[in-house]
């Protein structure tokens, strides 16, 4: 739905204002809606906050910090319950990480889509084909879901117990609310393809996940669930759209999901909920970063509001501020620092913490390495996953939970990317979306098999592992049983699921990342960081793989993440263009000579890589193979109502959190975040007004 273009429907109208008093008015002449107010001049509200007195610039019933999956669900839910809602978002657009996810939504507990598919029905007239899952595997209820997501016996292919350490109160609430959230999403214009499995963390015994879909049509219409080709983006044309910056392919076809003519993606949920939020009168203040939470007393009393700073993102060439796809409902506040009062509650939906070295090294001290990539940084910006929600709550007494659940998990701990040559391998965005201006390259996706044709070297130019095993990191213990080596038939809570024999049979964890993060000759005190990782290959490999060594897959002009040279000696020096590479690849020529000798010998005596190809045909290439981490699983300790708890186990009144800002459960993605947001929004809206 292009901005300022007739989409065949009216722009969302703001819900009729409730009880806007004479002294309430909106900044910048924005239309009334949501009772988000600016109190200024002589009408300023002052509150006691510790020793200081705060002059509030804005106030709302519920202030939501972040507009990703948690934030959008929380905002719409709280608004539905009559609260005025103001969402602060540090980025220039709404959606956070949700906007470019795959949109696979694992809920269950007998939710409406499970029931729809169990009955082989299509009540919305979407033109769905027959269900993909047999009816008995769709029969579900909250008790079964709760049992599944706390099943102590499940161990995955990396030896990690997926569900054993999940907080029981949290997951009881999660299971009870999962069916409601499915209906809530559908009530807010989200449509789903047939259920085709269960998402990571969604349990072993039932199928619970379906992709959010839109139908390809001439124009984009959220209410009708249609998407224009322009807004979809065009993978063949190497273009993403501002509407849908999805990382793999813009709007992937949903034909194989029982929805021919439809496409799926996280943008469907993000844009649908954003549209609904704006329609209902939720107000958005973009380019605004939450810096501090303000409590009545430093460690006691109710949470009153936030201090937030202006953090615009500017077009790197024009210097103009980047703007959101939809403008309606935005509050364009450009003061450097403002204070915002929450009459009822604040919801921390700020996402994870891997952008913060002090926080992430609480989980894994090796993550002191500064080149580690986290989140889609070009898409969400430099403040992405900065842990600000977590640290701000810690400063007023909040406790943490589940910090160990990041450890050794394929999504929560570092891995080596097979998208190479870009500073944003997680985002992997084509031109067309503003974030490409910062990514500068989509990167070359070589897949796990591509590593057969390249070597990986550390910051001094030495190999460290069988490259062909670099991508062997996925480890899903989920429905259907038997996938990824899990026991089949599967019996819930059965000790055999976790027996040594079963774990031995299914274990397949690659330790490539551990070798990559090891200290080497380039590691220096005091941090002894391991340095960037490089994929080294020759033009023969690029030709065999059909790798596109050109813009927009690599940056033009070069940005230091991809290098080409006539000789290996030159290549070894060129990598210094990378911002975190501190020395030339001292041993590269020696490493390649050894590798070529092993290729001639037909045996990798060093790392047992099964097939080796000589690296000898010029030109030679060095592409950054980023170490990256996707998810945060540790964070603020919350209870089943999504209330943040302090170190004594007491509720911090007026403060809620969810998703990656919270801890206590290992569960990836939309299912976790949407339910947390829904619970937080429900309870925040019902807090007494201060």
């Amino acid at each position, binding site marked *: 739905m292009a901005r300022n273009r007739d989409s065949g429907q009216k722009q969302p109208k703001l819900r009729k204002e409730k009880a806007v008093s004479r002294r309430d008015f909106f900044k910048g002449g924005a239309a009334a809606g949501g009772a988000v107010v600016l109190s200024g001049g002589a009408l300023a509200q002052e509150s006691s906050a510790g020793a200081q007195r705060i002059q509030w610039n804005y106030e709302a019933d519920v202030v939501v910090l972040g507009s990703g999956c948690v934030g959008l669900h929380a905002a719409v839910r709280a608004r539905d319950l009559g609260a005025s809602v103001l969402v602060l978002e540090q980025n220039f657009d709404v959606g956070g990480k949700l906007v470019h996810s*795959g949109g*696979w939504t694992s809920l269950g507990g007998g939710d409406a889509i499970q029931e729809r598919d169990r009955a082989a029905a299509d009540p919305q007239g979407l033109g769905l084909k027959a269900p993909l899952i047999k009816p008995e595997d769709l029969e579900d209820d909250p008790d079964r879901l709760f049992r599944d997501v706390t099943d102590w016996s499940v161990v995955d292919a990396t030896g990690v117990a997926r569900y054993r350490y999940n907080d029981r109160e949290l997951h009881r609430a999660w299971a009870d609310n999962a069916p409601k959230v499915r209906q809530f999403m559908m009530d807010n214009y989200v449509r789903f393809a047939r259920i085709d499995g269960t*998402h990571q963390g969604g349990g072993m015994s039932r199928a619970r996940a379906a992709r959010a879909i839109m139908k390809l049509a001439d124009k984009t219409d959220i209410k009708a669930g249609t998407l224009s080709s322009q807004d979809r983006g065009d993978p063949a044309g190497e273009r993403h759209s501002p509407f849908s910056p999805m990382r793999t392919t813009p709007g992937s076809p949903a034909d194989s999901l029982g929805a021919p003519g439809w496409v799926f993606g996280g943008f469907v949920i993000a844009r649908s909920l954003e549209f609904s939020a704006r329609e209902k009168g939720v107000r958005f203040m973009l380019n605004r970063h939450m810096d501090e939470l303000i409590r009545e007393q430093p460690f006691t009393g109710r949470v009153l509001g936030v201090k937030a700073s202006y953090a615009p993102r500017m077009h790197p060439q024009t210097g103009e501020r980047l703007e959101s796809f939809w403008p309606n409902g935005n509050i364009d506040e450009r003061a450097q620092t403002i204070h915002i009062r929450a009459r009822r509650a604040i919801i921390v939906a700020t996402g994870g913490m891997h952008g913060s070295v002090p926080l992430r090294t609480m989980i894994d001290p090796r993550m002191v390495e500064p080149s580690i990539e986290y989140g889609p940084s070009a898409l969400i910006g430099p403040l992405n996953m900065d842990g600000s929600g977590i640290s701000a709550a810690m400063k007023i007494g909040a406790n943490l939970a589940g910090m160990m659940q990041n450890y050794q998990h*394929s999504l929560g701990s570092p891995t080596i990317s097979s998208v190479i040559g870009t500073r944003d391998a997680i985002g992997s965005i084509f031109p067309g979306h503003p974030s490409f201006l910062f990514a500068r390259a989509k990167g070359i*996706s070589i897949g796990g098999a591509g590593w057969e044709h390249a070597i990986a070297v550390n910051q001094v130019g030495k190999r460290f592992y069988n490259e*062909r095993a670099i991508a062997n990191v996925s480890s899903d213990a989920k429905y259907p049983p038997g996938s990824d080596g899990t026991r089949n038939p599967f019996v819930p809570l059965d000790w055999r699921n976790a027996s040594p024999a079963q774990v031995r049979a299914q274990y397949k964890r690659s330790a490539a990342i551990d070798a990559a993060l090891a200290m080497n000759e380039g590691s220096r005190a005091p941090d002894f960081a391991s340095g960037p990782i490089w994929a080294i290959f020759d033009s023969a490999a690029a030709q065999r793989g059909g790798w596109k060594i050109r813009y927009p897959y690599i940056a033009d002009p070069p940005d230091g993440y991809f290098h080409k040279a006539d*000789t290996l000696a030159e290549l070894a020096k060129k990598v210094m263009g990378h911002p975190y590479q501190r020395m030339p690849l001292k041993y590269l020529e020696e490493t390649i000579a050894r590798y070529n000798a092993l290729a001639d010998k*037909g045996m990798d005596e060093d790392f047992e890589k099964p097939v080796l190809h000589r690296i000898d045909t010029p030109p030679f290439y060095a592409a950054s193979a980023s170490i990256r981490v996707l998810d945060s699983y540790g964070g603020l300790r919350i209870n089943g109502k999504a209330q943040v708890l302090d170190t004594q186990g007491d509720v911090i009144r007026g403060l809620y959190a969810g998703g990656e800002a919270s801890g206590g459960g290992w569960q990836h*993605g939309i299912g976790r975040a949407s339910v947390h947001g829904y619970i937080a929004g429900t309870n925040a809206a019902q807090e007494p007004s201060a």
Partner: protein
Amino acid sequence: MAAKATRTHGAPTCTVEQSAHKVDAGAELTVTVRLSCPHGCDLKGRRVSVRARDNTELASAELMERDGEAFVARAVPLRAPLRVGVQVCRAVVAAQEQDGVLHEATSAEFSFVATAHATSVNVWGLPSAIAAGERFRFKVGIKCSAGCKLTGRQLSIVDDEGAHVGAGCLREDPWPGTSALYFAEVEAEAPMAIGDHWWQASTPGSDSGVCHAAGAITFAVKVVSSPDHEVTVEAFDGEKGIPIAGAHVLLHPYRALTDGSGIARLNVAKGRYQLFVSGFNYIAYENIIDVAADVTTRAELIAEPEGQEDYH
């Protein structure tokens, strides 16, 4: 009216920083010149001249940038002479009187070594296995450290014993995709002895014009016995049943790529081989095959699961 008296501030302090102390003959280096007056005078705009020992001017620049008390001409480009050896130069700033203040002439000496251009030699395109006595071709490329055009340069190939086994002359244009890697295609005849032979490709140094150092590389020539049988490998997608073009087939030391029909044919000596068939986006297929006659084998490859980057 009496003339205004001129005061002297003496010679300003002049210092030089250089980008390198060793540089290829004829290549560029840069120098940064700093000039400061102990009295803190404004020296902006003063001209600095970089001169060789015979007083020839090599470069000049104006001091346009202020850095603390000093005025700076940053990264002044300077080309090293073609002659190899130590080069002594001076940065010179002439005397100047302005507003009744005289700054005397000043200079700073610096030196660098102009070196012979290094030559890097590379060999590629060798067959992975060559039958004894068979003629074969490969490529030899030479790159000058300063990117000189090397067209016409001679190279020679000698075997383990030092016997001449091939020669070449670098072509007019550099190898595609490179900036200045000049190459020749060389034809040679494989030795009769089975096994690995270590040959050397080399290019002599030169003193005429730009001085270039000699360069050489040792490389392996793998000689095998004459093939006995043909192995046909058919690579298919194990789920879709469609042929896989461009799959890599390895029966070490023999290698091949499948054609558009997913078929590769390899002529090999009889024996037992480990077969690897690998394709992009596929898990490699492995098998042991005994070759005692012509043989055809079907390799069904399984597609890789969704990549780790395709998170949900």
